[in-house]
C-alpha cells in the first residue's frame, strides 16, 4: 500500500495543479483531473508516467445527486509497471464537452463515440463523433438518469440510400398482393 501511495505522490509531483483530488478506493488509485488541458495531462500520464494503455472510457450521470452532473471515467494501465489508474473528470451539464483522446490512443475513437451516444457528452476534436450503438434518428441519450426506462421512440422512416438496386418486379409483386387483399395504395 505504501508503494501505491508513493506512486500517487509521484503523479502529484509531475501533474501538479491539474489534479483536483487523489484518493485510494479498494486498493485502486484514483485521481480527479481538471477538465481544462485534459489532453495534455493525459499526454504527461502516457509519456512521462508510463501509463501507456487506455483500458476504458465511460461516464456516470449523477443527476440531482452531485454538481457538476457528469463524470467521465478513464481506466488507464501501465503495462511495464503493471499498475492501474482511474482518472475521473467532472463535466457540467450546461457545457458537456471534454477533450478527445483520439490523438493519443486510437482506441478512444469507439469508446468516446459510445459515451457521446449514451450520455451526450461531446468530445472536442474527435474525428468522427457519430452515434454508435443507436441509430442516427434516436432522440435523447438513454443512459442519462432523466431518460425514462420505458420511453418509446417514434418509428423511423426507411432510409433512402442513393444507388440502391431495387428490382422493379418486387414492387409489382407487392402491388398484386395489395390488390388481392383489397388494399389501396
Amino acid at each position, binding site marked *: 500500500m505504501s508503494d501505491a501511495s508513493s506512486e500517487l505522490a509521484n503523479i502529484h509531483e509531475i501533474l501538479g495543479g491539474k489534479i483536483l483530488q487523489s484518493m485510494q*478506493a*479498494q486498493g*485502486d488509485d484514483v485521481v480527479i483531473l481538471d477538465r481544462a488541458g485534459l489532453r495534455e495531462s493525459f499526454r504527461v500520464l502516457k509519456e512521462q508516467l508510463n501509463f*501507456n*494503455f*487506455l*483500458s*476504458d472510457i*465511460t461516464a*456516470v*450521470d449523477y443527476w440531482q*445527486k452531485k454538481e457538476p452532473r457528469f463524470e467521465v*471515467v478513464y*481506466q488507464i494501465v501501465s*503495462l511495464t509497471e*503493471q499498475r*492501474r489508474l*482511474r482518472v475521473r473528470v467532472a463535466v457540467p451539464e450546461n457545457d458537456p464537452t471534454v477533450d478527445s483522446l483520439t490523438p493519443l*490512443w*486510437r*482506441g*478512444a*475513437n*469507439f*469508446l468516446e463515440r*459510445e459515451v457521446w451516444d*449514451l450520455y451526450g457528452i461531446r468530445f472536442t476534436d474527435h474525428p468522427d463523433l457519430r452515434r*454508435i*450503438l*443507436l*441509430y442516427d434518428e434516436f432522440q435523447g441519450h*438513454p*443512459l442519462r438518469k432523466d431518460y425514462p*426506462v420505458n420511453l418509446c421512440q417514434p418509428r423511423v422512416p426507411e432510409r433512402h*440510400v442513393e*444507388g440502391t438496386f431495387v428490382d422493379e418486379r418486387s414492387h409489382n409483386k407487392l402491388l398484386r398482393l395489395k390488390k388481392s387483399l383489397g388494399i389501396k395504395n
Partner: protein
Amino acid sequence: MKADNPELPSEIMELQMGPSHPATHGTIKFNLKLDGERVVECDVEVGFLHRGFDKSCEQATWTQVIPYTDRLNYASSLINNVGYALAVEKLIGAETPARCQYIRVIISELARLFDHLTCCGMAASELGAITVGFYMIEARELITRIIENLTGARLTVTYVRIGGVKHDLPEDFAERVGAAFSTIRRLLADCDHLLSRNRIFLDRMSNVGVISQEAALSYSLTGPILRATGVNYDIRKAFPYLVYDQLDFEVPLGSRGDNYDRFLCRLGEIVQSMKIVEQALKQLPVGPVWIDDPRFVLPEKEKVYGSIEGLMHHFKIIMEGIHVPAGETYFAVEGGNGELGFYIVSDGGGKPYRLRVRPPCFIAMGAFAEMIKGHMIADIIPTFGMINMIGGECDR
C-alpha cells in the same frame, strides 16, 4: 479515385455487407469502399443487438444482474458471472473461501475452452474446413455437457453468486472432466494436423488482418489479438485474481499479429486452460463455497420455512437486494476475448447506480478497419472470425 492497375481501370464501389450476412456470425454491418476486390475503406456499424444492458442493470437488484451478465458473451457466460461477482465483492470488501475460488477458476477455464473452441471451429468452417468445425463443436459439446451437469443450463448458466457459487461441484465432476479432456486432446490433435500446416488454411490466414504491436496497444486491444502481436499482457498474470498466482501455466504469444498467430494463440490457450483445470482439481481444498456473512448470503431453506427471522431475512435479500456500500470500483478478469472489466458505482442501495462493462470485442471491432485495410474482401471473413465478435457483448 483511380485504381492501382492502369490497365484495368475501375471505380471505387460502395458495398454494404450485413447486417445479416451468412458468413458473419453475428449482426454487424460493414460499409465498404472497394477497389475491385480490395478494401479501401471499411466503416464498421455495430449496435444491432443493443438492448440497453447498462440501463436494465440499473433497474435490477445486484443479484438480478447476474442473469444479464450471462447474455453478454454467451460463449463464456461463466467468466462474465465470475467477473461481475468479483467486482461486487471488491466493493463489499469480501473474500470468498478457498474452495469457491478454485471452483471459480475451474469454471472460468471451462468457459474459456468453450469460447476458444467456438471461435476456432467457426473460423475454420467458414474457410471451408468444415471437418475441423465439426471436430471442435464435438469438443465444445463435451464442455457443454460438463457445464450442463454442473449448472443445469448450457449457455445462460447464472451459476456464480455474489459471495459464492450456487452450489458445490457434483461428486463425479473430476472424472467427467478427465474423460472429456482426453477426448478433447485427441480431437485437438486431429484439428492441429488438419489445419496448422494446411496450405489452403495458411494462405487464407497468414499475413492477413495484420496489426502491429504499436497499433494494437494504441487501439486498446486485449486478449489473444494483443498477445498475437507479442505483447505479454494477460490479466491472470499481470493482475492475478482468484488463485491464478498459485497455478502453473504459460501465456502463448505470437509474433506477427496476423490471423494465423491469433489462431495459434487460441489453440495454445486451450491447452493451457486444460492444464489449469487439472491442476485446480488436484489442489481443490475442502470447505464451504459461500462466504460466512448473512448480509449477502441467502439463509438455508429450513430456516426460511422454519423461523420468522429466516423468512424475513430471505424476503429482505430478495426484495430489496443486498446492500453494497457506496463507492466505485473497477475489476477486470481475463475473458475469452480479452480484458473483461466491470466498473460499478453504488450509492449504497440494493441496485447498482451504474454498471459498465468493458467489452473486449467492441473495442476490437474499433481496430477492424485498420486490420482489413488493403486486404481482399474475402479476408474479412477470417479476420472477423478470429476477433470472435459476440453480438451480446459488443452491442450490450
